[in-house]
């Protein structure tokens, strides 16, 4: 990490300036606060303050039926409710030993990859906003996101708070024109990405701003248990879809892009490349999706009467490669219809812990984009 010492000479006193960035600051992506000590505009100390959006998610979950927490998981990372559902469903299915029909698995993968597109597109837009672009990239991102949200609304009934997954499958089958529309999206999305990249990737201002800024070394990233695109940008080839073989990801051919420098530009570009890989997965999934049930018999029964869902005592940890990193749910059952312990391993929160190390020695605008490149959603950080 960059060492920084105040210029201290006899007869030459400098003063540090303490600034509280947030919680109402426009670029903290929600109610997040950074207490920053500045020397000029250089950051010498940074203390993140969290908890403004704490909603007692874990304790609430311990006081309601297993399925009752499902709509609440939507509200963790409200950009990608589908993947949150996915991770929670996986954890509980592991706990209760529920099988998932193949069609449901495919639907889940389609939804997860669509969510990845939503999240990465939006993140890049907001990162550019943090960089000072006047809303143009973010609005292009919104324009494309709307198309995917329309698809979500089509099948799940809600654009953001999908609440679509059930233990043992998904809530409802795809509508007849869902798959054609996904195919159309797969056709059009690379074109949008090309345009987006023409606008951004080679822009010298963006490159000058992001390269060599907020470097996260490999070793530090691993020891701080960073996951997701951030870890891969630092050069660690770790993708839970490849490592954990969950769901049916083994059937799909896709590559995992790896960064080299671990700076903000790498984190930006890795996400662009990941979107292209996601489109590949979607393409395969849409072609290969089998017909059949979308929820197992047991699962459907419990979806109708969540109170009767009483997994036998035990514990399970289900994890997925969420767009932001490893999203895991740890559930302990004591045999009743409420979980005994419920814990969320939130990627936003754990990736955020490394913020100070990346920011020291950089300027205020760099801190803003470093925070933006971590990709946090305060709903998930504070829970």
């Amino acid at each position: 990490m960059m060492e920084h010492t105040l210029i201290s000479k006899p007869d030459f006193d400098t003063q540090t300036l303490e600034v509280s960035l947030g919680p109402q600051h426009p670029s903290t992506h929600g109610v997040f606060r950074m207490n920053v000590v500045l020397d000029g505009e250089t950051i010498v100390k940074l203390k993140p303050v969290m908890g403004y959006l704490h909603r007692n998610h874990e304790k609430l979950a311990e006081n309601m039926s297993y399925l009752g927490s499902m709509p609440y998981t939507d509200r963790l990372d409200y950009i990608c409710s589908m993947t949150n559902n996915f991770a929670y469903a996986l954890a509980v299915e592991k706990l209760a030993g529920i099988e998932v029909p193949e069609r449901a698995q495919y639907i889940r993968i389609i939804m997860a990859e669509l969510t990845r597109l939503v999240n990465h597109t939006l993140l890049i837009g907001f990162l550019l906003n943090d960089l000072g672009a006047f809303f143009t990239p973010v609005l292009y991102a919104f324009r494309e996101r709307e198309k995917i949200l329309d698809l979500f609304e089509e099948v799940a009934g809600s654009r953001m708070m999908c609440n679509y997954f059930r233990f043992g499958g998904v809530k409802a089958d795809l509508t007849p024109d869902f798959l054609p529309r996904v195919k159309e999206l797969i056709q059009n999305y690379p074109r949008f990405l090309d345009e987006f990249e023409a606008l951004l990737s080679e822009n010298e201002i963006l490159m000058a701003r992001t390269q060599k800024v907020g470097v996260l070394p490999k070793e530090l990233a691993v020891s701080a248990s960073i996951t997701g695109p951030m870890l891969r940008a630092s050069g660690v080839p770790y993708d839970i879809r490849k490592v954990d073989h969950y769901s049916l990801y083994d059937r799909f051919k896709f590559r995992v892009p790896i960064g080299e420098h671990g700076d903000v530009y790498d984190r930006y570009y890795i996400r662009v490349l990941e979107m292209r890989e996601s489109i590949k997965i979607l393409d395969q999934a849409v072609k290969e999706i089998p017909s059949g049930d979308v929820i197992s018999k047991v699962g459907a029964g419990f979806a109708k009467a969540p109170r009767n869902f009483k997994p036998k005592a035990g514990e399970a940890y289900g994890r997925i490669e969420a767009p932001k990193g490893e999203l895991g749910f740890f559930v302990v059952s004591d045999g009743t219809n409420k979980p005994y312990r419920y814990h969320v391993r939130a990627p936003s929160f754990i990736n955020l812990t490394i913020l100070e190390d990346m920011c020291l020695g950089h300027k205020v605008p760099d801190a803003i984009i470093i925070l933006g490149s971590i990709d946090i959603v305060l709903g998930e950080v504070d829970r």
Partner: protein
Amino acid sequence: MFGIGVLKGMAVTFKNFVESYYKKERLTTIEYPEKRLAEKERFRNFPFLIFDEKPEDPRCVACDICAKECPPQCITIVRAQDAQGKPLKKPATFDIDYSICMNCGVCEEVCPFDAIFMDHEFELAEYGRFEDLNYTIDRLLKPKEHFMKIRPTDATRIEAELKKKENAKKAAAEKAAAAAKAKAEAAKTQASQVPDTKPETKPNEPAQPADPPAEAK
């Protein structure tokens, strides 16, 4: 060459500027109050209660399942009583606090009587924060036709199922009545409660798993 990326970016924005005047996929905005998007059939907002013929007879039997399963606990149900204080199979109060409801749709899924559904209505702004958003039964009740209008696919399926069930029930009731008659004739003891208690105990039984595949589709 330095500067090409900047020019490329400007070309992209210029293209967007020009094309926003004549290409629909560039300018996707729908000018809302005048124009509206077609509503998706599965769209869900806040729940409403359904009645078959007249609002005094809602389908809801006040079994309290939705209130218990509701994750944010926004439903309050008090069962109606007749003059003797005997509980009736309909709600006296059925309040849904729309300010608490998070439109997750759990109530709709768990209801064994297909009495509560998610509405498409979303222009619900009110001046009061508490009273105005606490929807009482008279504001919640909507006719069967409304449901048929907003979600035709689900509605036809559910109606068909209900009809089937009713027919089966009728047949069963007839059978039971016949049996009862036979029994009464035979033993002349009380036999009238049998069909009465049945639906009340039903929800807690795992009787539902029988129809999920149909539900899922």
